[in-house]
């Protein structure tokens, strides 16, 4: 018998030691980029206005403010209304895409995902142009009632629609045709089949989509900032407290409040994932899309209406960017792209955004892939791997606004040795990588999990170092996912405004921030022009990645094609 003290461990080979070290470094980076800023918010929330420690008093004071209660109520109402609007719309759209033989299915899918290319400020701008004081259709919302609840809900619906749709598409894409056949032979009509088969099978997707929409609305401030008028919401309140009044502790408290729905939705989502299990057995028969002419026509009309509305909201801002003076002088012009005439940062902001998106895509993809690989494939990953995986899940639950606030409190602290980063492009890259880490990490983990777990043991038995297997086998087989991650980072960094709004300086001003500032200054046309540039470059990036992916797949992925 051996002693029960320390369990024996295999000695690590040199490459394994190096990889473990790398994993610990990545973990340290995540701690700095995510955990410490969040801790800084907690600390800041306990300071009095003069910077002295005050325990829970500032929290109590802030919560007692009538303004805050109003803002919380406003956020809640807007979020509930948006969820109630988006969920059925997206469910119908997803059902039409997955369950009906819809003509132009790919086009409609693309159309519905277009809002992802735009910052959340864009629908606000479009709404102003459509229904605002000088709007084409201002009679639809009399007395400027678009500025407020109605405008926010419509704008947020545009902004959150693709997020809900993606979840529901996944939920509706799988199904077992045998269940529907059985129901039909038992005499169940279409309504009964929907209520007893489709709805139960997609209930987790529905809850998940509802949580995502709710959280996005509560934590977004782009739409409310542009079209919200005097309507109080938490996100704008936090922005005003920090940027307008330099009241950091109060900003921190609101930040903590914003964290609540996100944490709740995160917890619900994890709980659902555990309950969900596998619903579709391996023997399930694939669904046959509905082909009845009437169903197809109705689906086509429905998707055209919803997709058309999204297109109008996107297109209005873009159109306004090229129009002399909306709505009085509709001649074509490029003068709104001459940003020298307005404040906000102009072409420098656009160039900075491109740089930020590029660096975020590069750094983010490398860091995320190495982290996912190390935490899932490395024999010696151990504690570092588990911690990294846990920490990688955290950013999903942290709204960008809160993360940005955390960065101010953490990096702007004089005692922080990393203080020098503050105000540089580097901190914006770090913040963006951290902000979008979770989705990228999950994508990488999913791709890696599909690889045979015996690759590494085989390679080790052949005495081939880990790095060579990573380079020659793991990376090439995961290439489509890697490109997906890079594209996601690029587009997200291009369009985000919430996290970076607190971190930019005149030298590192960004395009999305410029949209906000131009709109604030009343230069709505210039804001629309800048938003158009963002949409154009995100779209171009997506196109570029699609081409690159296509070319790489054709060139290096010959092995995917059976003979």
């Amino acid at each position, binding site marked *: *018998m*051996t002693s029960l003290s320390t*369990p*024996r*461990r*295999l*000695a*690590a*080979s040199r*490459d*394994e030691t190096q990889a473990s070290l790398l994993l610990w470094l990545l973990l340290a980076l995540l701690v700095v980029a995510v955990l410490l800023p969040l801790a800084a918010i907690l600390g800041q929330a306990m300071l009095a206005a003069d910077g002295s420690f005050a325990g829970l008093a500032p929290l109590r004071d802030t919560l007692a403010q009538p303004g805050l209660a109003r803002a919380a109520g406003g956020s809640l109402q807007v979020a509930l209304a948006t969820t109630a609007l988006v969920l059925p719309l997206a469910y119908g759209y997803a059902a039409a895409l997955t369950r009906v033989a819809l003509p132009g299915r790919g086009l409609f899918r693309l159309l519905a995902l277009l809002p992802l290319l735009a910052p959340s400020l864009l629908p606000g701008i479009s709404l102003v142009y459509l229904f605002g004081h000088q709007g084409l259709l201002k009679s639809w919302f009399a007395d400027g009632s678009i500025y407020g609840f109605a405008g926010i809900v419509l704008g947020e619906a545009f902004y959150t629609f693709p997020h809900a749709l993606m979840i529901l598409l996944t939920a509706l894409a799988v199904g077992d045709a045998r269940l529907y056949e059985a129901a039909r032979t038992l005499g169940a009509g279409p309504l009964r089949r929907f209520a007893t088969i489709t709805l139960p099978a997609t209930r987790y997707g529905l809850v998940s989509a509802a949580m995502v929409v709710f959280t996005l609305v509560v934590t977004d401030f782009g739409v409310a900032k542009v079209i919200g008028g005097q309507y109080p919401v938490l996100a704008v309140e936090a922005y005003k407290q920090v940027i307008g009044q330099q009241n950091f502790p109060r900003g921190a408290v609101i930040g903590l409040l914003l964290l609540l729905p996100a944490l709740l939705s995160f917890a619900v989502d994890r709980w659902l994932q555990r309950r969900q299990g596998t619903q579709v057995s391996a023997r399930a028969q694939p669904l046959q899309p509905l082909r009845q002419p009437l169903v197809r026509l109705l689906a086509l009309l429905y998707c055209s209406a919803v997709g058309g509305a999204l297109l109008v909201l996107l297109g209005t801002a873009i159109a306004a960017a090229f129009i002399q003076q909306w709505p009085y002088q509709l001649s074509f012009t490029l003068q709104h792209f001459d940003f020298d005439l307005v404040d906000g940062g102009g072409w420098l902001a656009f160039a900075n955004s491109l740089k930020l998106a590029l660096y975020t895509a590069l750094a983010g993809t490398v860091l995320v892939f190495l982290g996912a690989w190390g935490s899932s494939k490395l*024999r010696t990953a151990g504690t570092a791997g588990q911690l990294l995986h846990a920490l990688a899940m955290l950013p999903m639950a942290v709204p960008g606004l809160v993360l940005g606030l955390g960065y101010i409190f953490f990096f702007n602290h004089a005692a922080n040795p990393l203080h020098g980063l503050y105000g540089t492009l580097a901190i914006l890259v770090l913040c963006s990588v951290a902000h979008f880490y979770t989705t990228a990490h999950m994508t990488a983990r999913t791709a890696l999990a599909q690889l*045979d777990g*015996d*690759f590494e*043991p*085989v*390679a*080790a*038995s*052949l*005495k*081939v170092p880990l790095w060579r297997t990573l380079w*020659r*086998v793991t990376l*090439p*087989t995961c290439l489509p996912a890697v490109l997906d991650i890079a594209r996601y980072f690029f587009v997200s960094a291009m369009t985000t405004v919430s996290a970076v709004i607190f971190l930019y300086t005149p030298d590192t001003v960004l395009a999305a921030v410029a949209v906000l500032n131009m709109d604030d200054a009343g230069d709505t046309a210039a804001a629309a022009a800048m938003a158009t540039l963002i949409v154009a470059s995100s779209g171009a990036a997506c196109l570029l990645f699609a081409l690159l992916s296509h070319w790489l797949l054709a060139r*290096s*992925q*010959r*092995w*995917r*094609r*059976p*003979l």
Partner: protein
Amino acid sequence: MKLDPTTLLHKAPPADGAATRPYLTLAGISKRFGQQQVLSQLDLTIGKGEFVCLLGPSGCGKTTLLRQIAGLDVPDSGQIVMDGRDITLLPPAQRDYGIVFQSYALFPNLSVADNIAYGLGGARRDKARRVAELLALIGLDEIAGKYPAQLSGGQQQRVALARALATSPSLLLLDEPLSALDARVREHLRREIRSLQQKLGITTIMVTHDQEEALTMADRVVVMNGGRIEQCATPFTLYREPATRFVASFVGQGNCLAACSRSSQHATLGDVSLLLPAPHGTPPGSALTLFIRPEDLILHPRWPATPDAVLADITKLELLGPIYRVSLHVPAWGAANVVADITHAQLAQLDISLQQRVPVSLNVARLRVFAGEGAQHD
């Protein structure tokens, strides 16, 4: 037949040492996962050039044992010595073996040639020559440029084997290498792997749950159960002289008859008194289990001269292809139900049918005697 009395009534005899000099020695290997003891105090010696199969039901610890040898896991206690070198705590890369997994784990993005060359170093020309050699060895010269997804299961299996052999390791580990293949291919590859192994003289350990595979391929079979070695012996010994009741019932078919010890070499089975092939060493009056293979039950066309023949009722007659399996009820053996295997020729000679009685006797020399009664598993 002369039997060593120590193998009787003995739970797990020590491996009778390898014929050649020991190459791999496992001593006192134990491993537990949480509350479950997966391997307990396991000893095994494998000789140079030997082909050893680890055989057992799922969960018996055979794959866990292979993982300890491969360095994919570390035993809680015990020592693994390979070629005189203690490798217990060495990482896989510092051991010297090639491995073929159940999934083959072929790199999908590399061609067959690149897969085989994966562990090879040195000049491009040398690598190409070695790959050509190996492709010729596995008889698949023409598929060098294909990708794994374009190969059949049997081809993939052979490529995985060639990759494992490419660096000329001194030990080959096979983890259920044939279980993903269909029966015909499997049978063909059994022979092919065995002849390859003999040609190269490489020490080989194969994990399998398929007894036929183990019996046809291995020099020695290690039967495992509940994390212990039940018996380690040649296929012949294993089949003819199972050391424990578990081995007797796990390997091949058999009948267990409840008997009672009368003297040092006598036992009573129902109404019949038997002279056993060897002393069994249990006190008179204690329970015994007699184990006999279906082919060692003899059905007689006429009443035989042997004193211990009894009458049996035929309850079922099954055709298993080359043989018939006859189910019998034997009142004189304590109302035992047994099965006997007979050839087509024997059946014709017997001229029997259902609901008929037939004289039956035991080939006493082939009886295996275990202490205790009843259940087939310990």
